[in-house]
């Protein structure tokens, strides 16, 4: 009898000997691990980038990024205000590369927040008091109660808020980077157990000029620090074999920006669509006015026709008013995204993914129809797609 060597399984492009794909055995035997992948350290600086190579162990389902520190205003504060890039677009761009796939995640901090709420409807911003513009609101802010947008004594700051006084404002912000499309099944999670694995997180910090407008005699400094925590699942050994769940798919959130917008219907073509990809969600917003811009609230006064379209003129879903999209989004996500942040989106997985998910192989020229009631001033749209696509060999 001739012994035949067992062909090693290749997971996400990584040869993985002695590993079998067996979700039935994996789930009861694995253990959830949450541990630091980068200890707390000062950010390189506003307008700069930080990167970290993440630990190569287990199956990585997500990353928790925390920013903490102080915004320190001095001098004469008159004329100082925060922009609508603050606080969540402090993370100007978040990029994760894994196992040879560059930019599995590549979007803004604001978009990460939106996807976090969309993917986890147990989260709620209702009842969380935050200052937006000239008033305080208790919903639609995308803020968790444990966060702090900037506070010293009774003085608080927020997007569009005039900084009331000098002082050191405490800040506490967090973002969740969903490497897995689903935190229960771990579909889309990253196989990180071998030395051949490459897993890198890079964050671009927004510039000071885009985060705040400083009065002529005011000064600004900060003591912001960041840290990264990994949400990892161990790879259990069952009957002498390491078992893993279905890792046949990569999960991607990829953002893009366009300024080609005008009054009435705009057709925004989604880049990178193709055979083998499934569109889970797409979330966008439009900002207008003086740089860095103010989000256009999703109201009937601002938006008319909202739809998604493909091919010549196939339009599976359409609404006559932005208000209807905002209402639909709140139904699906439990958060009024459109109120301050001007976010709107299409969700193809929250109700029944097998039925609703969009197979990009059968929808050529996939695009969003965004109808603007008024002619926008220096507009730009920021859109992010959440997709699944085939990992290089999986289950």
């Amino acid at each position, binding site marked *: 009898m001739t012994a035949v060597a067992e062909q090693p399984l290749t997971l996400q492009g990584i040869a993985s000997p002695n590993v079998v794909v067996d979700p039935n055995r994996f*789930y009861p035997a694995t253990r959830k691990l949450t541990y630091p992948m980068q200890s707390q350290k000062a950010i390189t600086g506003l307008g700069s980038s930080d990167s970290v190579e993440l630990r190569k162990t287990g199956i990585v389902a997500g990353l928790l990024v925390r920013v903490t520190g102080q915004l320190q205003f001095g001098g004469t504060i008159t004329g100082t205000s925060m922009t609508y890039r603050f606080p969540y677009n402090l993370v100007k761009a978040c990029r994760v590369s894994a196992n040879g796939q560059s930019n599995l995640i590549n979007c803004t901090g604001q978009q990460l927040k939106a996807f976090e709420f969309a993917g986890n409807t147990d989260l709620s911003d209702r009842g969380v008091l935050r200052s937006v513009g000239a008033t305080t609101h208790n919903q639609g802010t995308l803020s968790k109660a444990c966060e702090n947008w900037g506070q010293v004594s009774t003085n608080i700051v927020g997007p569009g808020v005039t900084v009331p006084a000098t002082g050191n404002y405490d800040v506490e912000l967090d973002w969740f980077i969903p490497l897995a*499309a689903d935190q229960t099944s771990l*579909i889309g999670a990253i196989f990180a157990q071998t030395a051949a694995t490459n897993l890198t997180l890079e964050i671009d910090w927004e510039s000071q000029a885009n985060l705040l407008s400083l009065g002529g005699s005011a000064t600004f400094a900060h003591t912001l620090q960041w840290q990264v925590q990994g949400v990892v699942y161990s790879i259990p050994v069952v009957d002498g074999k390491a078992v893993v*769940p*279905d890792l046949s*798919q990569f999960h991607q959130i990829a953002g893009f920006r366009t300024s080609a917008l005008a009054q009435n219907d705009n057709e925004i073509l989604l880049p990178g669509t193709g*055979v083998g990809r499934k569109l889970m969600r797409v979330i966008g917003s439009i900002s207008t006015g003086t740089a860095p811009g103010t989000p256009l609230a999703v109201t009937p006064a601002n938006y008319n026709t909202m739809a998604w379209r493909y091919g010549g003129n196939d339009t599976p879903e359409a609404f006559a008013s932005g208000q209807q999209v905002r209402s639909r989004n709140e139904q699906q996500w439990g958060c009024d995204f459109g109120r301050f942040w001007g976010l709107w989106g299409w969700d193809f997985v929250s109700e029944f993914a097998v039925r609703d998910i969009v197979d990009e*192989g059968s929808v050529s020229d996939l695009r969003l129809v965004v109808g603007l009631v008024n002619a926008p001033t220096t507009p730009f749209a920021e859109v992010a797609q959440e997709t699944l696509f085939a*990992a290089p060999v999986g*289950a």
Partner: protein
Amino acid sequence: MYTAASQYGVQPQIPGAAAGAAKPTFGLSPGGPDDKGGVAGLVNPRNPLFVFGVLLAATFGLIGVSGSARFGPAKLAADLGKA
């Protein structure tokens, strides 16, 4: 249990396929375990091209097909092409 196919309707992956490798949008062949490729597939009687080829050849006299059956005194015969 959870798989990409059961949860998102994603097609199971073929070992060796590259990331994002093109797959047919619509099925063009009946497939199945007895689906043959190459010359074997070409001369498979289930292949409509093979049936069409036989009819074409018979029509132009390249091949002949004939058959007969006898039921007592009655005889039934038919031929196509140069039998």
